[in-house]
C-alpha cells in the first residue's frame, strides 16, 4: 500500500532534483547545500559569493512563505536536548566540509552521475546515521 507521506516524499524529491537540475543546466553549478554555505563561511567560495548568497536567500525565504501559508504552526520536531543539538551541529558542519559534500551534493548530485565518491560518501553517512540512531535512541535514550 502506498502511503500519502511517500507520495509527498516523491513529489518533494522531484522538486529537489529539479532544483539541482536547474542549478546545473543554467548556472553550471553543483547544488550542494554544505558546499554553498561552507564556501561562504570559510571564504573559499567568496569569488562566487553573490550567487551563493542568492541561492541561500531562496532556500530560506521560499519555504518560509510556503510554511506560513499552508502549514502554520509547523515544527521540525527537533529535540530539546541542547547539548545534543550543539554536538550534532558541529559534527554535521565539520563532517560535510571534510567529506566535501552532504545529502544534496554527494547523495543527489553525485549518485545521479554515478560518482564513486558520492556513492561511497552516501554509504558511509547512511551507515553512521543508522548506527547513531540505534546508539542515541535505543541504547542511550538521549533522543
Amino acid at each position, binding site marked *: 500500500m502506498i502511503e500519502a507521506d511517500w507520495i509527498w516524499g516523491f513529489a518533494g524529491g522531484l*522538486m529537489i532534483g*529539479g532544483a539541482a537540475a536547474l542549478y546545473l543546466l*543554467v548556472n*553550471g553549478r553543483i*547544488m550542494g547545500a554544505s558546499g554553498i554555505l561552507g564556501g561562504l563561511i570559510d571564504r573559499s567560495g567568496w569569488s562566487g559569493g553573490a550567487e551563493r548568497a542568492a541561492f541561500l536567500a531562496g532556500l530560506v525565504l521560499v519555504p518560509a512563505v510556503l510554511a506560513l501559508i499552508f502549514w502554520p504552526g509547523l515544527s521540525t520536531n*527537533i529535540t530539546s536536548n541542547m547539548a545534543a543539538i550543539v554536538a550534532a551541529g558541529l559534527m554535521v558542519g565539520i563532517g560535510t566540509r571534510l567529506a566535501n559534500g552532504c545529502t544534496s551534493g554527494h547523495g543527489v548530485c553525485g549518485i545521479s552521475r554515478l560518482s564513486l565518491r558520492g556513492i561511497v560518501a552516501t554509504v558511509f553517512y547512511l551507515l553512521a546515521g543508522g548506527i547513531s*540512531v540505534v546508539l542515541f535512541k535505543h541504547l542511550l535514550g538521549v533522543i
Partner: protein
Amino acid sequence: MRNLFAFLAGGLFGAGLLVSGMTDTTKVQGWLDVFGDWDPTLAFVLGGAILPMMLAWNMTTRRARPALGGAFPAKPAPRLGHNLVIGSVLFGAGWGLVGLCPGPAVASLAWGGIGGLVFLLAMAAGMLVAPGVRTRIDRLAAI
C-alpha cells in the same frame, strides 16, 4: 541573471525539502531507524531527486555549456581519501543524532525555533573550523 536563477533553484530546493518531509527531524530519524519503527519515506525522496538529475547530467553531454555560460563541473577523480570517509561518518552520526542535514537546517530557519537556530550556528562553527581540522588530520595521516 545568475543570482536570479540561483535564488529560484534555492527556493525550489527549499520547497522540495519542506514538502518531502526532510525538514521534519522525526521523519529523518524514522528513516535512519532501521532497527526500530522504520519509515521508508526518505527512500522516495532520494529516488525522486535522483531522477531529474540523471536526465540533467545526460543533457550536459549534449550541450557545450550551461545556459548562462561558464562550464559544466568536471567529474572528480574517483579518489577515495580518508577525509571522505571520516567526514561522512561524522556527518552521518550528527545527522542521526538530531535529524537535520545542511539543506533542511537552512530551509527550516523560519520555523525551526531556538533549537534550529542553535543547530545552524553550531553547524556554521563546524564549517569554520573544518579547514583546520582537515590540516590536522592530513598531518596525522602522513605520519
